[in-house]
């Protein structure tokens, strides 16, 4: 019996498939051209996921989302003028920077100390005069905005000789304040792990245009030993 199933004749004789009676050729599922597209398809398959990954990665990176943030402020206050050309020290206005965690945004009074008589009439400082008169505060827009679960202490950094510019950039050259640095955890860690490059004599911390007259790393190394700067990378240093 099994031998009955041998040979083409027998098989086609089964009539199992009607194909035999039809013309010998069929149209393939895909046209010949598709083979030329294989490389394209291949590349696409590889590239698309890559693109998405990149998109997400850069999308989350501070460079894409934060750096360069430069909102309009309610008062056209120019750091470039005050800190730069007039050379007023940061601490004149940000009084608590050496003693407290916040480098307090100055109260309107501070502005009026000078502007009571300097340019008192200028339209630019109208909102300041108003605030001073009414006691209503000026609502500045926050530029350097750390997440709420991060505890940063200005005094701890300034007292060790970490210059303002290390985190804020050359504010004395900014008409309106702009975020220069990513202020991400990774970025903080870089400095906490190797602070040398950012150390200067503490008394010069606020000096914007200061440049070391020797190799900053050599200096930094020395200052680090002198001022016992051993920044910690423990989580609890910033997260509580």
């Amino acid at each position, binding site marked *: 019996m099994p031998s009955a*199933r*041998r*040979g*083409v004749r*027998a*098989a086609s004789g089964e009539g199992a*498939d009607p*194909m035999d009676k*039809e*013309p*010998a*050729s*069929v*149209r*393939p*599922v*895909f*046209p*010949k*051209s*598709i*083979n030329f597209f*294989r490389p394209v398809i291949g590349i696409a398959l590889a590239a698309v996921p890559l693109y998405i990954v990149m998109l997400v990665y850069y999308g989350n990176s501070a460079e894409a989302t934060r750096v360069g943030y430069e909102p309009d402020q309610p008062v056209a206050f120019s750091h470039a003028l005050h800190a730069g050309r007039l050379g007023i020290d940061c601490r004149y206005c940000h009084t608590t920077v050496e003693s407290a965690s916040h480098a307090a945004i100055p109260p309107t009074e501070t502005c009026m100390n000078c502007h009571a008589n300097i340019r008192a009439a200028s339209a630019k400082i109208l909102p300041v005069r108003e605030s001073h008169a009414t006691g209503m505060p000026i609502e500045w827009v926050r530029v350097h905005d750390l997440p709420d679960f991060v505890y940063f202490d200005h005094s701890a950094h300034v007292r060790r000789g970490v210059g303002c510019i290390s985190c804020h950039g050359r504010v004395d050259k900014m008409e309106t304040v702009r975020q220069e640095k990513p202020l991400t955890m990774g970025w903080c*860690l870089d400095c906490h792990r190797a602070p040398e490059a950012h150390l200067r004599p503490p008394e010069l911390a606020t000096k914007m245009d200061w440049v070391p007259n020797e190799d900053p790393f050599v200096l930094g190394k020395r200052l680090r030993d002198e001022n016992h700067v051993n920044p910690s*990378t423990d989580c609890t240093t910033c997260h509580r």
Partner: protein
Amino acid sequence: MNGKWTTADGAPLFGLLAEFADVDALIEGAEKVRDAGYTKWDAHTPFPVHGLDDAMGIRHTKLSYLVFAAGVFGVFAGLGLQWWTNTVDYSLILSGKPFFALPANIPVLFEVMVLFAAAAAFVGMLAFNNLPLWYHSLFKSRRFLRATNDRFFISIEARDPKFDPRATRALLESLRGAAVEEVEE
């Protein structure tokens, strides 16, 4: 390919296709074709037929070496990843354990190894087999539709140096139980 041969109705010829009904005929046929010294030819079966490889004189694939290499790479990748992230880049004190201890790293290392090797096996198979190849001349043949069902085929391509329409057809028709047809490019 070369326009040297054409079919009866003048279309460029892909090659000749011989259909067999069972394994024994196929194997015999394959041995004959092999002995005739053809190189650009192949057999088509609905399932892997054992012994056919010898009958066709197919050399052993290199796939295994590729997979092995991938596996070895996986080992180092897995180990390197763990060592660099947990020991070098950000070492944290966890449960008073050392920053690097092989035992804790073995599971991940193993999984990564398997992952790489397996991926290599699959991708390698496709690559070596020149797949995916959605279009192929043989798909034009109606009979060939049964290559994935219950029929066995031998195809000899026209670009084979020893190919000669008449001689080759003669050879194929001489094989037991073969039904031969031309397949155009």
